[in-house]
């Protein structure tokens, strides 16, 4: 088991956003978290990457308890997140953004190799290497965010809404790349609003509602679950 959350609760101020979430991600999996806006998907991600202190419960990664570990140290352990809203550094060029992804690494040849790998996955980024991150279109920024997260050579890649704001063509593309990354050996935990896409690509998925996990199963099971259809498609 690569990642395990046990009974994790988390609050913003006095508002409890997660009520005891427990989930696991195995090595080599793509696991999706789906649910409505405000259900706690992104909050779960923030708990895993360490951006938010948890109130209760524990998180272990790769056999180690990381509940109280600082976010930057988790990156060194192999957790890398492409945050919600992409979080591109607007004042840095595309290349600098990618270099930021490799901030914790020192081995120059390896980094250069990974740069080539990312440019291979996203040829668009190669074209825009010198452009500043803030001036890129939404789709390009999304590619950059994913590429940047890959630059740290993560064991676990956290993707928060990778399809947000993308045209259907691009959504296809980005999910293809996610699968490709996964096949190259990176475990993926995915938060997605586009339930259809997410469930059809994921090995397993959890459904969140108001800070609780209400359902879990394989992607295919959930994709055909009438309750899920009802919640997401508005059709019973």
């Amino acid at each position, binding site marked *: 088991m690569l990642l395990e959350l046990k009974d994790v609760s988390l609050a913003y101020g006095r508002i409890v956003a997660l009520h005891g979430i427990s989930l696991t991600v195995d090595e080599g999996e793509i696991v999706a978290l789906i649910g409505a806006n405000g259900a706690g998907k992104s909050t779960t991600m923030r708990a895993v990457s360490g951006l938010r202190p948890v109130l209760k419960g524990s998180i272990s990664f790769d056999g180690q308890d990381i509940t109280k570990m600082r*976010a*930057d140290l988790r990156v060194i352990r192999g957790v890398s997140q492409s945050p919600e809203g992409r979080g591109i*550094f607007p004042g*840095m060029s595309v290349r600098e953004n990618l*270099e930021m992804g490799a901030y*914790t690494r020192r081995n120059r040849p390896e980094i250069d190799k990974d740069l080539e790998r990312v440019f291979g996955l996203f040829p668009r980024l190669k074209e825009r290497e010198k452009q500043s991150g803030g001036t890129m279109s939404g789709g390009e920024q999304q590619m950059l965010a994913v590429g940047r997260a890959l630059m*740290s050579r993560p064991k676990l890649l956290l993707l928060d809404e990778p399809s947000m704001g993308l045209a259907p063509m691009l959504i296809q593309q980005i999910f293809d790349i996610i699968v490709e990354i996964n096949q190259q050996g990176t475990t993926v935990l995915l938060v997605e609003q586009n339930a259809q896409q997410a469930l059809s690509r994921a090995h397993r998925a959890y459904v969140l509602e108001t800070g609780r996990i209400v359902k879990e199963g394989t992607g295919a099971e959930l994709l055909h679950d009438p309750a899920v259809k009802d919640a997401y498609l508005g059709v019973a």
Partner: protein
Amino acid sequence: MNFQFVLDNLAALTVTGLTQGSIYALVALGYTLVYGVLRLINFAHSEVFMIGTFTTTIIWAALGFGVGAAAPSTLGVLGLILAAVLAAGAASGATALVVERVAYRPLRKRNAPPLIFLISAIGASVALMEAAGAITNRQPRGMPSLVFPKVQFSIFGADVTNLQLGIIFSALLMWVGLDTFINRSRLGRGVRAVAQNPEVAALMGVNKDRVIMLIFILGGAMAGAASVLYDVKVGLTTYSVGFLIGIKAFTAAVLGGIGNLRGALLGGLLLGVVENYGAGVFGNQWMDVVAFLVLVVVLLFRPNGLLGESLGRARA
């Protein structure tokens, strides 16, 4: 009002202004770095500068060049200045770091609101200044005459001395060094990342605490270097020397666009020149008024300063 005087001496006033402005610019870098990353006016930075001015006198005295000592050879002078830059840079950097540790870090740990940081900063500033005042008995301290201004060349009728050249050149050199470090090195990239988006920077593996330590040390070292230039130029320091220069340097940082290294340089030089013109027109005693009025006017038309905010972001 004496516009004729300014027109007649425009070049001379510009050169003296640039000299003064170079020192402002170096001190402004410290404000800008800290503000860029922490959104915090480090009020105690003026005292970091003050510590540098005293360190310089101490190191010179320790090397046998107390007040009134005859200046050594040119090479010796350069050596003394270099030693002072190293010592003052280290002392100021260390002071800045102590301020960060004692006055700011505990508050950051508690996620205190900005106003509280400001009060703590004021406290640190007062404490440092008064401690220096108590130690020096509130008396000014002089230093040896090291550089004797000699006119090197004239430009548009302004005599430029070796002292002025040296100060402007050293300041530019320091600035280029810092700018290169921030924009080209890995650590510098980390600083910019934290400034632009601290959360995402953490997701990239940047240790925010270490970045904060780094910027306090860098800003402090710049103030230390500035304090040596100040000492060479003015030859006298007191415990309260930082207050006015600090306010001017902060004004310069805001003028150029706080959080912006290029802005600090531009703001510092511009402030130095403009207040010299203003002093020429209205009289010396109105110099500070001119400086502040320029700030207000600039902010009214460019609310984010001349070059805009944000560390390392080269946008208009």
